[in-house]
C-alpha cells in the first residue's frame, strides 16, 4: 500500500497535559514535596537551598561552589571514601549544582534503596566535616580547574561576558572563583558559609517516585536537622543578589585574545528581566523565533545559509534579579566580524523592519507548547520542574497555565519585547579569538574593542 507523498500528514493537536502537582508538606520552615511517579525502579531526591553563587562576598568569589564541592568530601565523621562508597553500593548518583540563585543536590537512586539514599543525602548536606585536610586537597583541585579554564574558549567567553554585563553585581563574579580568591578563603569562612547560609535558610526537598507519600515524608522528616523546625524561609533575602542591576558603563565590545584559535567564540547579549516578569512568555516566544530553535532566524542565517558555524543558539535566563538574553556561538575566524554584524542585524530586524510573520510565530509557539508533555516524562524531569516552582515561589498553576499563556502571545507582543529588550544598541559583545585574524572589529560601530583582563 503506498501513500500520498504530495501532502505531509497534519499532526493532531496534542492533548493537554497536567503537571503532576506535588503533595506539599511543611516541617517547620522546610518544604517537603512528594510527587507520585509511575516509574517503579527509580526515586529522585532533590535538596534545594535557595542560596547560590550570588551569595559569594565580593572578595570571595567561588565560596559557594567551594563549599558545595566539599559536601561529599567527608561527612558525619566519615571520610570521602566512606561517603562515596556508601552511594556507590546503592548505585546512587549524586549531582551537585551551584547556580546563581540556588544550590541543588540531586540524588538519583534505585527505588529499593531510596530511604538509605535519603539518609545519606541528609548527612552530606547537613554534616560535612569541612576539615582542614579535605579543604587543602579540594582547594588545590579547584585552583587547577580555574587554571584549566583558561584554555577553554567557552569558559573564557562566559567569564568575560558576565563581567561585562553585570560589573560588580554578584552575577558578574566568576562562580568558580579565581586563583586569588580560592587561596584566600579559609576554613572559618567555609564553615561559616555552610552554617549560616546553606543551613541558615530553609531548604525544599522534592521527592519523586512510586513510594507512598507518607513513607517518603516520614523519611525526609527524619533527616532534617533541627534548625529548620522553626524559622522563616524569607531569611534568604539577606543572602541573595540585589534585585536591581545598575547599568554598566563598560565597553560594548570586549576581546579575549586566544592566539592561533581555530575559531572565534562569541557572546552577544544584554540584561532582560527577572523571574517574576510579566513578559516571561513573550520573551521565550521571541527567543524561540530569533535563536532558540534550529529553524530560528539566527541559525538559518549563520549556519544554514552561510555555513559560518556548527550552530548558534540564544537563551534567556530568568533569575531572581534580571538575567541575560545571550547569543552563543563559535564561528570560523575569518567570519568573526561578519557574524557579529549579522547577529546585530537580525536583532534589529525582529524588533522592527521585519517582524515575525504568522508562520514563524506559530512555529515558535508550537515548538514550546506542543512538546510540553515531553518535559514530564521522567522522575528527574518532574523533580527539576517542581524545584523551579519552589525556588522562585511560582504559583501551583504555573505549568498548567504555560500552554495557554504561550498561545496568547501575538506578533505585536514579540515586536514589542524584541524592541524593548533586544535592541542592538543594548547589546554587549564578547569575542574570544585570534586578535590578528578576526578582521576589523571596529567597523561594527561598537567602539574600539577593549582587552579583557587576564584570568
Amino acid at each position, binding site marked *: *500500500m*503506498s*501513500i500520498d*507523498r*504530495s501532502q*505531509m*500528514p*497534519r*499532526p493532531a*493537536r*496534542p*492533548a493537554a*497535559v497536567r503537571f503532576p502537582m506535588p503533595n506539599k508538606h511543611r516541617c517547620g520552615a522546610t518544604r517537603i514535596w512528594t510527587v507520585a511517579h*509511575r516509574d517503579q525502579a*527509580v526515586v529522585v531526591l532533590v535538596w534545594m537551598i535557595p542560596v547560590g553563587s550570588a551569595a559569594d562576598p565580593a572578595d570571595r568569589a567561588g565560596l559557594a561552589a567551594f563549599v558545595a564541592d566539599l559536601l561529599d568530601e567527608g561527612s558525619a565523621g566519615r571520610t*570521602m*571514601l566512606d561517603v*562515596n562508597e556508601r552511594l*556507590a*553500593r546503592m*548505585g546512587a*548518583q549524586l549531582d551537585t549544582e551551584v547556580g546563581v540563585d540556588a544550590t541543588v543536590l540531586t540524588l538519583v537512586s534505585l527505588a529499593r534503596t531510596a530511604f538509605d539514599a535519603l539518609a545519606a543525602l541528609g548527612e552530606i548536606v547537613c554534616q560535612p566535616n569541612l576539615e582542614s585536610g579535605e579543604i587543602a*586537597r579540594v582547594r*588545590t*583541585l579547584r585552583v*587547577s580547574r580555574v*587554571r*584549566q579554564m*583558561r*584554555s*577553554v*574558549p567557552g569558559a573564557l567567553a562566559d567569564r568575560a561576558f558576565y563581567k561585562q554585563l553585570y560589573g560588580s553585581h554578584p552575577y558578574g563574579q566568576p562562580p568558580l572563583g579565581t586563583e586569588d580568591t580560592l587561596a584566600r578563603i579559609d576554613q572559618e569562612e567555609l564553615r561559616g558559609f555552610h552554617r549560616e547560609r546553606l543551613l541558615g535558610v530553609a531548604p525544599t526537598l522534592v521527592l519523586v517516585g512510586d513510594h507512598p507519600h507518607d513513607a517518603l515524608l516520614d523519611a525526609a522528616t527524619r533527616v532534617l536537622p533541627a534548625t529548620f523546625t522553626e524559622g522563616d524561609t524569607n531569611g534568604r533575602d539577606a543572602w541573595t543578589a540585589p534585585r536591581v542591576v545598575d547599568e554598566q558603563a563598560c565597553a560594548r565590545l570586549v576581546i579575549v585574545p*586566544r592566539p592561533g584559535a*581555530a*575559531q572565534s*567564540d562569541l557572546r552577544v547579549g544584554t540584561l532582560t528581566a527577572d523571574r517574576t516578569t510579566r513578559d516571561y512568555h513573550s520573551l521565550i516566544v521571541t527567543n524561540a523565533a530569533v535563536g532558540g*530553535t*534550529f*529553524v530560528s532566524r539566527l541559525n*538559518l542565517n549563520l*549556519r544554514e545559509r*552561510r*555555513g559560518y558555524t*556548527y550552530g548558534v543558539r540564544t537563551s534567556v535566563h530568568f533569575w531572581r534579579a534580571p538575567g541575560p538574553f545571550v547569543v552563543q556561538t*563559535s*564561528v*570560523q575566524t575569518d567570519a568573526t566580524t561578519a557574524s557579529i554584524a549579522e547577529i546585530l542585524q537580525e536583532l534589529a530586524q525582529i524588533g522592527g523592519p521585519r517582524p515575525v510573520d504568522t508562520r514563524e510565530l506559530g*512555529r515558535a509557539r*508550537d*515548538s514550546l*507548547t*506542543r*512538546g*510540553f*508533555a*515531553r518535559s*514530564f*516524562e*521522567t522522575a*528527574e524531569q518532574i523533580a527539576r520542574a517542581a524545584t523551579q516552582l519552589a525556588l522562585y515561589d511560582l504559583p501551583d498553576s504555573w505549568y498548567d497555565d504555560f500552554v495557554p499563556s504561550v498561545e496568547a502571545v501575538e506578533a505585536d507582543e514579540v515586536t514589542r519585547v524584541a524592541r524593548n529588550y533586544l535592541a542592538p544598541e543594548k547589546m554587549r559583545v564578547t569575542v574570544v579569538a585570534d586578535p590578528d585574524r578576526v578582521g576589523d572589529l571596529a567597523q561594527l560601530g561598537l567602539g574600539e574593542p577593549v582587552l579583557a583582563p587576564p584570568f
Partner: protein
Amino acid sequence: MEIPFTHHTLPNGLDVIVHEDHGTPIVAVNIWYRVGSKNEQPGLTGLAHLFEHLMFEGSAHHDDKYFAPLQEAGGQINGSTTADRTNYWEVVPTGALELALWLESDRMGFLLPAVTEDKFKTQREVVLNERRQVYENRPYGMASIALSQALYPPTHPYHWPTIGVPADLYAATLAEVHDFFRRYYHPGNASLAIAGDVDTDEVLRLAEQYFGDLPGRDLVDQRHPPIPATPEARVLLEDRVELPRLYLAWQSPGFFAPGDAELDLLAEILGGGKISRLYRGLVYERRIAVDVVAVQSSRQLAGTFQVVATAAPGCDLAELEAHIREEIARCAREEPAVDELERARTQVEAEFTYRLQTVGGFGGKSDQLNAYNTYCNNPGYFGEDLARYQRASGGALRAAATRWLDVPGVALSVVPVGERARALPESAVAEVS
C-alpha cells in the same frame, strides 16, 4: 530486566521494532542505518557524518529543513554518527507519529533529488566548523584522533576520524556523495524502532504503509577485519592546555565479545569515580593528578580500553604512568575483592535502569532496542546484556586484564605548546589528520 517489544521484518528488509509505553503521550521514532565511518575508504573519509547533516536538509517531497515541520509539531529531533552506525530520531506527541514516519520514509527513499551541490558545499563548511569547535579549538580535543591513528593501522576502518579529514571532505564530489547514499541508505540496511504511547498493530500497519514500497536491497557486506594486536607506541601532541595529560590505550574486545563486560567492570573498579583505585591512588592519596578515568569503549569491530589522567601542577607524566601501570599489573595479578566487584556490578545495573527511563533520545529505550538489534540481531538483548555483568567472576576479570592489558600499549602525552620535554620520554610527535 525486560522491555517487551514486537519485531517484524518487512519484505524489503526493514526491521520494525515496537515497544508500548503509555506513561506519557509521546512516541519516539528511531532509525539506525548500518553505516558509519568504518564503511568509508581512506582518502574519502567523513562522508558518513556529512551525510547525517544532509539528511536534515530536505528530500524529494519536502525539499526544505526537516527541523521545521517537526518543531512545529512539538518534536525533538537529532541524529549522530559513529564509526559503526548512523542514527536519527524524533520524539513527538503521539498525534505526530505519522508526520515523523512520512519524513523518515521520504528521506530513506527519496533523498537524492534534493541533495544539490549547494547544500553539499554549505554543509561541508558546517561540518568543518563542527570539527574546529569540537576537536581543534577544544583543549585535548585532538587526542582521540591521535589515539585512533596510533592504535589502528592506516588500512583499518577505525584509523580515521568519523568527523573526517578536511582534505578528504574538500576532495569529495557530489557524485561520490550520491553513491554513498545509494549503497547504504535503504530499508535492507536499516532498523526502525518505535517506542511510546502507541498501539503495536497500528504502528506495524503504518510502518508497512510508509516504508513498505521503498525498494529493498541486500544488506551491505560488513567488513570484519581481525582486531589488530595492540601496537607499542609513545606519541605526543602539543596543545593549548594548562596541564599535561596522559592517555594509555589498549586494543580490547568489541561489543558483547568475551571479555567486554569484564573490562567494563574493571574500568569501573580502576577509574569509575572517587572511590576507584586510580582516583584514590593518584588524586586522593598521592595528589599527583587532578583527575583520572578508565573506560572500556567497545565498538563493533574492536574495543579500546583507556586510562586518562591529568597531571597536578608540577607533577610529571612519568610518575602518573608508573602508578597506573602498577595498578594495571595488579589487575592481571590479583582478582578484585568480592565487595569491590559487587559494587561495580550494582553501578552497572543502576546505569542500565537510569538509561531506560525515557522512550527516546540517545540511549533511551528506542535507541537501545535498535542497538541490540543492529549489533546482536536481537532487540530484546537487555536481560542477556545485564547477565554478562552478573556472571563475570573475579577470575574472569583477572583473565581479561592479562589477555588485553598486559602489554605497554599506546601512550599519548598531551602537553602545553612548547613544552615537549614534559611528555613521556622518547615520545614521537603524533600523526593527526
